[in-house]
């Protein structure tokens, strides 16, 4: 431990050109090799769970869609599914399909966004710009369907807020064709580029057992050979009604993560096509009277992995407890396994390869104002939490 502090620290953050959010990776470097890594978050804690407890059940989806700008369809969906389970509401079939379409459009734009960012991180600005250009029509389509490019606010307890606009199929199909063609080109370009191979293959390998031990989710897990996907394992919306594959790669390196994401774009296109073809007629919402006491969890596969929401109702208008866990929360600690021993250039692309989303992941941190010294560490916070639980139990 003492030896560690003699090594120079390469501070990646809190403000760093790598990512636009606040994050702080202390890389302990020996020359170009990273020998240890310390992840520090909690720069942007927003207290979403506490705010949620003061909002009514039907207001919370708009709040949780702001947990993450990119996963702004998955978080509300997970929350809504939890509440629907408490109240025993079954949304109409058309609503399930609409939810599927919006979620998959979100997945396409998120994955293309990440491919562009990955290009930016390794200095390939052309991929960055081109990928983001290809992503634009998806955002336009989401705007046409929901009224917003992000933060769609379309899902509500018992169904969807708004139906697909009249004749939207004729507009979506050509855009899907167009994206498929462009992504085909981009995928081939990425898979064939020798310098990209040299930069990404065998870099930041997250071994299968490490992936299991750190319980990573989403593309990060699937790139390490773990075939998990909430859409298949615990089907929600209309995912069990359409035909699609879980994309798995065995290598666990950054290149595998790129491949998984690129392939998932094609799967998402496939899902949207089928969902549009099978879209049943009918209402998009059921009437919701009141939320009975009870508790439930809701899960949804966000582009980054499993989004987990826990909701407890005590029969009132507001959730008594609402807990949200974004996928980055489990993916970020896996850096300990994948980054140590790598070169600095490789570590930074590995950090980005799990597509981390920090403000979604933020947990409370208590530090001294000037020195930045941690006042409450993990064990102390755990102790506080247990004491509070004991107090509440006594009061019950």
């Amino acid at each position, binding site marked *: 431990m003492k030896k560690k502090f003699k090594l*120079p*620290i*390469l*501070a990646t953050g809190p403000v*760093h*050109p*790598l990512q636009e959010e606040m994050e702080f990776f202390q890389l302990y*470097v020996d*020359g*170009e090799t990273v020998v240890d890594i310390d992840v520090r978050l909690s720069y942007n804690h927003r207290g979403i769970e506490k705010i949620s407890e003061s909002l009514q059940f039907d207001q919370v989806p708009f709040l949780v869609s702001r947990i993450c700008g990119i996963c702004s369809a998955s978080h509300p969906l997970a929350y809504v599914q939890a509440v629907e389970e408490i109240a025993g509401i079954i949304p109409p079939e058309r609503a399930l399909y609409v939810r599927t379409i919006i979620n998959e459009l979100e997945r396409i734009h998120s994955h293309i966004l990440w491919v562009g960012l990955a*290009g*930016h*991180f*390794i*200095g*390939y*600005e*052309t*991929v*960055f*710009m*081109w990928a983001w*250009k290809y992503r634009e029509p998806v955002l336009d389509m989401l705007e046409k369907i929901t009224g917003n490019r992000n933060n769609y606010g379309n899902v509500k307890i018992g169904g969807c807020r708004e139906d697909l606009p009249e004749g939207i199929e004729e507009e979506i199909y050509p855009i899907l064709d167009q994206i498929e063609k462009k992504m085909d080109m981009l995928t081939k370009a990425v898979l064939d*580029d020798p*310098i*990209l191979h*040299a*930069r990404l293959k065998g870099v930041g390998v997250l071994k299968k057992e490490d992936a299991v031990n750190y319980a990573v989710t989403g593309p990060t897990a699937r790139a390490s050979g773990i075939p998990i996907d909430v859409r298949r394992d615990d089907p929600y919306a209309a995912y069990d009604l359409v035909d699609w594959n879980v994309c798995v790669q065995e290598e666990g390196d950054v290149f595998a993560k790129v491949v998984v994401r690129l392939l998932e774009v094609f799967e998402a296109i496939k899902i949207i096509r089928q969902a549009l073809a099978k879209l049943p007629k009918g209402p998009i919402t059921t009437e919701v009277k009141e939320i009975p006491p009870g508790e439930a969890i809701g899960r949804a596969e966000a582009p980054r992995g499993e989004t987990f929401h826990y909701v407890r109702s005590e029969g009132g208008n507001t959730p008594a407890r609402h807990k949200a866990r974004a996928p980055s929360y489990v993916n970020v600690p896996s850096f300990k396994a994948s980054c140590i021993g790598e*070169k*600095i*250039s*490789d570590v*930074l692309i590995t950090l980005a390869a799990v597509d981390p989303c920090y403000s979604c992941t933020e947990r409370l941190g208590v530090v001294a104002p000037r020195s930045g010294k941690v006042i409450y560490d993990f064990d102390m916070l755990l102790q506080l939490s247990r004491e509070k639980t004991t107090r509440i139990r006594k009061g019950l």
Partner: protein
Amino acid sequence: MEVIRHLFWLLVFPGFLFTVILGLYACWIVRKVTALIHHRIGPPVLQPLYDVLKLLGKETLIPEAANKTVFISAPVVGFASVLLLSILLWAVDFSPANENGMFLGDVIVAIYLMVIPSLALILGSSASGSPHAAIGTAREIKLVTSYELVLVMAFIVVLIKAMTFHGISDAQNDIQLLSLSAITQYQHTPIMSISGFLAFLAALLCVQAKLGFTPFDIPEAETEIAGGVLIEYSGALLALWKMMQAIMLVALPLFLVVLFMGGIGTSFGSIALGTGKYVLVLVLLILIKNTNPRMRIDQAVKFFWFYCGPVMAIAIVLAMLGKFYGKWWL
């Protein structure tokens, strides 16, 4: 009058002012062409000038941990050396036959002047006392040691080509060939031969590395080490670095044009043709910049030593064979 003429030559045309303006314009070309490749609109023509002017008006912060003398003098040294290099090249280009402006062995001087910016960058960044800059410095040192040998080998090919053209064999004239003006006068376009073309490609990649363009922007690598070598520079000192890079954007492609493509010349037609050559080299650099990701430093070293090095050795052998058998195309 003679003094004024020399001062004008140094400071206005084609010295400081002309080169800086041309460099900033070349900077704009790089940014504009890059933007067009990216499907962006790109900056207006005067943007690089605005950037430099804005930087000149900003506060210059010097880190507490820095060695102030070295930190401040490094950009000045780098800037001066690049300016001198460009003046040398302009002199060669505008009046290759002018005896008093030229001297024997100025190729060697040019090679030295081309290394000094990198050395100044290494000095300045290592004096800044930042860990990011330290890593950038280490990378810059590795990069310089990897491409410099290849660059010199490419020059050797050009020298052999120049001898081939004129069948010079006595020692007196061989030494004369180390003069840039002699090279421009003697030979025409070594790029038209096999060895010359290989040497041009290798030298182009070395220039790419010297300019700090992707895939060799490893010492700066903004998403890894946040600007690396330049991280602690701000205000006027950063503006000096930027102007130095702008002049390098003129001087280094011009150097390639002089060595491999027969220079620019002074007549109207040859200026038009020479500008075309320069723009061609520049656009090649931009295309390489925009179709490659950044290499890792060990990959860059391997690339120059184990790929470009042997290719250059073959090119030298080919050029020697060409000289021996009198075949210009080898």
